[in-house]
């Protein structure tokens, strides 16, 4: 009986330590990908887009959505209700093969850790395109999404932390009254010029 009691005290103390550590290091979310190693690509890229939105900035943005009382804002607000952060990196290069594929593969390697589950995977010989979409679930609740797209002249990385309504987001794409980003326009033009198979 004494031994049981001692053991349980030890367990409690250990768990206290673990939970304290977890609460202190709250930012180290398991769904958060590390993009630091891609900093070196900024010098080589002709265009770089970096968007980080989390913490107080995200809370502020959510409050703004509540202020704006139009249909899209309400839908977006619903889709991102539980969102904790979005991190985006896009690198565009002038010429093909100006970056080392291994740099992007290091990001993909992070998605092989337990917790991440493959949702979609596309490989295309056109432009050496590789697309990976992974999700992470904590129980029944989505805790993260990762999208890694690499082509011969561009890299796009999206890391969403927290639950987000993917279907609604895809549905809303193009209806957010935000001007389209330059890269997307160029891709569309390229598609129009090439004959359909």
């Amino acid at each position, binding site marked *: 009986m004494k031994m*049981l009691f001692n*053991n*349980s005290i030890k*367990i*409690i103390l250990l*768990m*206290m330590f*673990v*939970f*304290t550590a977890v*609460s202190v290091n709250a930012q180290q979310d398991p769904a958060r990908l590390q993009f630091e190693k891609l900093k070196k690509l*900024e*010098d080589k*890229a*002709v*265009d*770089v*887009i*970096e*968007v980080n*939105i989390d913490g*107080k*900035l*995200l809370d*502020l*943005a959510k*409050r*703004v*959505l509540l*202020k*704006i*009382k139009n249909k899209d*804002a309400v839908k*977006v607000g619903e889709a991102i209700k539980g969102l904790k952060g*979005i*991190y*985006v990196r*896009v690198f565009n290069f002038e010429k093909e093969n100006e970056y080392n594929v291994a740099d992007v593969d290091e990001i993909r390697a992070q998605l092989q850790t337990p917790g991440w589950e493959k949702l*979609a995977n*596309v490989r*295309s010989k056109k432009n050496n395109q590789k*697309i990976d*979409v992974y999700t992470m679930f904590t129980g029944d609740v989505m805790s993260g999404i990762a*999208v890694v*797209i690499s082509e011969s002249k561009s890299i*796009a990385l*999206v890391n*969403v932390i927290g639950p987000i309504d993917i279907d609604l987001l*895809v549905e*809303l*794409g*193009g209806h*957010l*009254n*935000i*001007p*389209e*980003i*330059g890269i*997307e326009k160029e891709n569309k033009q390229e598609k129009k010029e090439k004959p359909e198979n």
Partner: protein
Amino acid sequence: MNEEYLWDKTGKDPEIESLEKALSAFRYKETEPPALPSNVIAFKSEKKSSRKGFLFGLAVAACLAFVVVALGAWLQVSNQQPKGEGLAEMELIKENFVSEDDLKIKEDETNKQTPIKPIAKIRKAVVAPLSETQARSNKVKLTKEEQYAYDQLMRALTITSSKLNLVKKKVQGEEEQKTAVKEGS
């Protein structure tokens, strides 16, 4: 269309019924389950671990109580912090926020003075639509910080949704191509 029939088959709907009849050819036909491997390690019986489970549950409950108390104390302390600290983050946002006047800097001049880092170029693209979004956001009056936060969020969501759309099109396109090939043959 009879919504109730579509939901729980209450009532009748000839259109839906004809679809069901046509598609019944694809319905699942009961088959035997797969042959299961014999070397799968069975999960341990939970009876033996019930005592350990109880102790673990007790430990978790104690830790949760500790966390709640610690959180409460932290919140109390943070509420007592001087207001200036809360504003520090907003000041940081202001520093990152580029006004329209700043955008008028000519490229030639900046090229001469300092080498332009790629990220500096893109900050223009991120900020430029501010006035447009201001007009489009139902004429709601927003502070500069709110506008910036909103634009950043919309920018992030736009990129995310465009990438997800791209993936969806790729997957659907390949699926349709393969279906067309199969049905053609």
